[in-house]
């Protein structure tokens, strides 16, 4: 395994002369794409609720969050610019090449589902970013602080709505519980396996904890929310079911973003208007 910080330095010094393998270690590329694709999809899901959210103000917040997520995705893809065609990454990939958290494949069906994305999925991504604060891969480490600062408000927004639905009516509580259950398993899987890519990233000092440790941090962080919908004990220390787990794509069961989502996030219909 190559030392990622060292190879990134080399890439900087000899721009263009590096293959993907030399410039950024394969498992770091996997991590960057897993984060970038999740952020891009998450931003799109937030944008879908800019109109039609329960309050005007929450729609405004979602539009701001969507901007944040797309900004984060952009800077993450750009980390690969010395070793890969970023334009092709952003606009040329097929659904099965995306590495987003699986629950982002389709539009959210209800407001509670959207709240679960804010309060649980977005927070899971932040737990992964938080584990990069002291990363041996410097380009990523440098970008973490500002990103997490923006994420504070995403988490606050999500948690406030989560609690509001959890303590509202019987129906809103049931909807919130169901929405939380929908995302938890895929999110816990997304952190990965200790004996897989995630474990290698920890060994190399790219991430400051193995997947099982990140899962634990995530569960600790969201336990007050899970408790509010009676799910605190539903997700323990044992690993999720990893049967059929795809290491690169961080999911079981295959699948990918649906056709309409892919068309929108790649900007397919607007490509004709690019004049360069």
């Amino acid at each position: 395994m190559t030392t990622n910080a060292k190879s990134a330095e080399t890439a900087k010094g000899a721009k263009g002369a590096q293959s993907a393998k030399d410039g950024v270690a394969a498992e770091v590329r996997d991590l960057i794409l897993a984060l970038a694709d999740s952020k891009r999809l998450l931003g799109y899901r937030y944008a879908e609720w800019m109109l039609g959210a329960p309050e005007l103000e929450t729609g405004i917040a979602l539009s701001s969050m969507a901007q944040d997520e797309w900004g984060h995705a952009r800077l993450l893809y750009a980390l690969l610019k010395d070793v890969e065609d970023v334009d092709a990454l952003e606009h040329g990939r097929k659904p099965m090449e995306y590495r987003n958290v699986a629950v982002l494949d389709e539009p959210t069906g209800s407001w509670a589902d959207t709240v679960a994305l804010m309060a649980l999925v977005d927070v899971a991504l932040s737990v992964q970013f938080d584990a990069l604060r002291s990363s041996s891969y410097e380009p990523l480490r440098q970008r973490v602080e500002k990103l997490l600062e923006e994420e504070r408000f995403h988490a606050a927004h999500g948690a406030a709505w989560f609690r509001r639905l959890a303590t509202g009516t019987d129906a809103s509580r049931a909807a919130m519980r169901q929405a939380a259950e929908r995302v938890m398993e895929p999110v816990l899987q997304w952190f990965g396996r200790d004996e897989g890519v995630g474990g290698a990233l920890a060994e190399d000092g790219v991430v400051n904890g193995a997947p099982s440790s990140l899962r634990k941090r995530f569960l600790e962080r969201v336990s007050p929310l899970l408790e509010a919908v009676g799910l605190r004990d539903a997700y323990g220390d044992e690993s999720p079911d990893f049967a059929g787990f795809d290491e690169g794509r961080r999911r079981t069961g295959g699948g990918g973003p649906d056709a309409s989502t892919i068309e929108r996030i790649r900007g397919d219909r607007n490509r004709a208007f690019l004049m360069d």
Partner: protein
Amino acid sequence: MIFEVFARKSRGEPLRHIGNLNAPDPELARVYAFNTYDEERWFDMWVVAREHLQEVFTVDRGEPVAAE
């Protein structure tokens, strides 16, 4: 519930009223204030429920309210 939003550009400057918003509780009011009014660079920002503002007096409504 209506919340009034206050902010200032720099330390020591008086707080300035910059707008209001609708939110069900103070927690969401803080989030909405941040997302709605963060276009400019503020030193700090505050929200207060309109119902918690106490009128001291308003000139065209007659005499100032004296302490009991």
